[in-house]
């Protein structure tokens, strides 16, 4: 049979990343509410994540899942609600994916290495 259309593939990727994000976001929301108690500080963030392999893994997975999930959704919105051509919406999707990956990993790895480990 012919291979499934690109929309089908993007749908599978978006739902797969959504399933991962479902777990990540629950953890993230709980952590936000715990972390903001008593105020947030750079020292507090660094002391939690710096040198901690578990958080490094968690945030790496989180960043990858976001980098897959969000650009696909943004592309759908652009296709449906703007006059942009398909090639242009693919371009925006790819750029957003790269921006999230590069900025995300710069932050995640940077915080892991912060605090002079």
């Amino acid at each position, binding site marked *: 049979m012919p291979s499934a259309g690109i929309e089908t593939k993007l749908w599978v990727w978006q739902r797969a990343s959504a399933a991962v994000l479902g777990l990540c976001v629950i953890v993230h929301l709980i952590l936000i509410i715990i972390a903001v108690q008593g*105020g947030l500080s*750079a*020292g507090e963030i660094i002391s939690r994540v710096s040198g901690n392999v578990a958080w490094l893994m968690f945030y790496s997975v989180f960043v990858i899942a976001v980098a897959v999930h969000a650009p696909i959704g*943004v592309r759908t919105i652009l296709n449906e609600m703007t006059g942009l051509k398909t090639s242009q919406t693919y371009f925006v999707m790819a750029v957003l994916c790269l921006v999230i990956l590069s*900025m995300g990993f*710069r932050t995640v790895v940077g915080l892991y290495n912060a605090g002079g480990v």
Partner: protein
Amino acid sequence: MKPRGHRNHAHYWAFVLHRVSGLLLALFIPVHFYVLGMAIESATRLDGFLSWTNTPLVKLAETMLVVLLAAHLTGGLRLMALEFFGTRESSKTAVAIGTGIALVVGLTFLLNVR
């Protein structure tokens, strides 16, 4: 020529919430990484920024982001339950519960943030 009455129902508004929250979160993510990245360069720079966020208006904006994130989460879980498990029953109730959970999460954040 194009009346819009057909859109006024729970699932349509849930769709609007999902789309708007998704778009705003996608725009916020790079900002989020940029701010966190300040801590890598110097902790004092992030702390300086964090003290700027210590105003009621910014706290309100942060609360809104938390609500958007929680709403996108519950909306997404509802959609995946429909798509993968074909859940039919109480679909509109699920919209209400999901939105309610998002507001509760936002309120919890607001009560704990300082």
